[in-house]
């Protein structure tokens, strides 16, 4: 299977503190990798390096077999990102926001693409509302629409269902699953929702203190650590950290 993202010996140091230490992984086409780990374990720094927001201290990132050159922003047209912690301008309507980003990503037929996303994400009733007037669940859907505006080959999602009610959370998870079935998209998902990670991810990277300390499918990790579910595996790792 074709690897779309290849991360080799990725390292980031802030002064004497090593935030990410020799991280290696490969994301294959149409697959989803989950990044799991306690707060401050290096998930966000890893994602930020993949998006060109942070310059790695060393290591390499290859996208579609090409070395990521931070000076050439063209690699960013193959990717996109969504997080409830990053918002779209609140004073603009949903339609205006999507038009701006469609233009920014140089989409050939922006209206067709926007209409397609509106339909898939059931945004019809929200399209002319100001983004700031929407609920957090609605805003998450808009943010997801923005992140798919350029048909990205790689989608980075940072806690896409954080603070959502179970119904909206399930809608988003189902949407992501369906979207991936029908589109050539690979996903890197950072989440603290263990059920979400188990449901969406083909492979899980467990991070601790900047390093990947374990990896495998959800079932492999549960069985390896002798626990009943992924949450217990997570707790074991987090508490091992505290005991150290």
């Amino acid at each position, binding site marked *: 299977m074709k690897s779309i993202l290849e991360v080799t010996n990725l390292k980031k140091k802030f002064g004497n503190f090593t*935030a990410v230490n020799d991280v290696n992984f490969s994301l294959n086409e149409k697959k989803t990798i989950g990044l799991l780990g306690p707060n401050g374990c290096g998930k966000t720094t890893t994602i930020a390096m993949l998006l060109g927001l*942070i*310059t790695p201290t060393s290591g390499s990132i290859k996208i579609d077999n090409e070395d990521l050159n931070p000076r050439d922003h063209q690699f960013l047209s193959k990717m996109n990102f969504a997080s409830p912690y*990053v918002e779209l301008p609140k004073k603009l309507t949903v339609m205006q926001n999507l038009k701006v980003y469609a233009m920014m*990503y140089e989409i050939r037929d922006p209206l067709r693409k926007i209409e397609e996303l509106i339909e898939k994400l059931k945004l019809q009733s929200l399209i002319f509302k100001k983004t700031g007037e929407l609920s957090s669940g609605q805003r998450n859907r808009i943010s997801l629409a923005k992140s798919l505006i350029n048909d990205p080959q790689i989608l980075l999602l940072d806690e896409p269902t954080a603070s959502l009610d179970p119904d909206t959370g399930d809608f988003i998870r189902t949407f992501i699953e369906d979207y991936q079935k029908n589109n050539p998209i690979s996903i890197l998902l950072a989440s603290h929702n263990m059920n979400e990670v188990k449901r969406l991810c083909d492979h899980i990277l467990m991070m601790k203190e900047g390093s990947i300390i374990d990896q495998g499918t959800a079932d492999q990790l549960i069985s390896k650590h002798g626990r009943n579910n992924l949450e217990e595996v997570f707790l074991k790792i987090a508490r091992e950290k505290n005991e150290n």
Partner: protein
Amino acid sequence: MKIKRILSLMLRHFYLIKGSFPRIFDLIYWPTVQIILWGFVSKFFTMYSSYFGNAVGVILTAAILYDFLFRSSISYNMLFLEEIWSRNLINLFVSPLRSSEVICALTSTALLRTLLGLVPAVFIAMPLFNISIFELGFPLYLLLLSLYMFGITLGLLVTAGLIRFGPSFENVAWASLFFIAPLGCIYYPVDILPEWIKPLALSFPLAHIFEEMRSILVNNTVNYKNILIALGLNIFYIGLGIAVFYKAFKSAKNRGTLVNIGE
């Protein structure tokens, strides 16, 4: 550099301004108040002082030109701050938008915002005080270009500070022009300054711009040397501003501060 990406960021700010009456009002209100205020002050000087026959024209033109500079710089800063306040910066930085495209988009939008605010004020000054900045003739456009370039330079430096130090640098954004105003010789000639400050004042384009404005209005002579020095200094300073902006951006990427800039 892609024009479509530059236009996309301009469109984002056009939507913002178009959809908000308070924002449009704010853009027009301050330059108009400034000009009316200075108009009456200078009219008072004319009526009670024989020193300056055409004080209204000189002071009011200086006020209009200074406001043009002020609006250019503040508009540039405001556009960047809007992205921080709306927590949208990360979305911009993870898009294919290049730093050079961000600079172009903000520079062009700042000009449109400035003109939107200043044009009504200029036309209000005409019937109210019988003053037109167009009396400066063709050199006016060169002086405006110089002021705009210097306003953008200050905007670039403040934006670089916002990227490097985060939103706490916001106060500097508001105060940036007041730091430089005393050396700009906006309302008084360079000769008023103490000898030891003169070289410092003349190292900025503002002193040359406002000296030339007075020369045209008071002596009816155009000294293109002043205009060219101002433009030359501006090219140097805008180059410096761009270099500092890029350095701040690179430094923020190394330090990881871009990720938290809106928090």
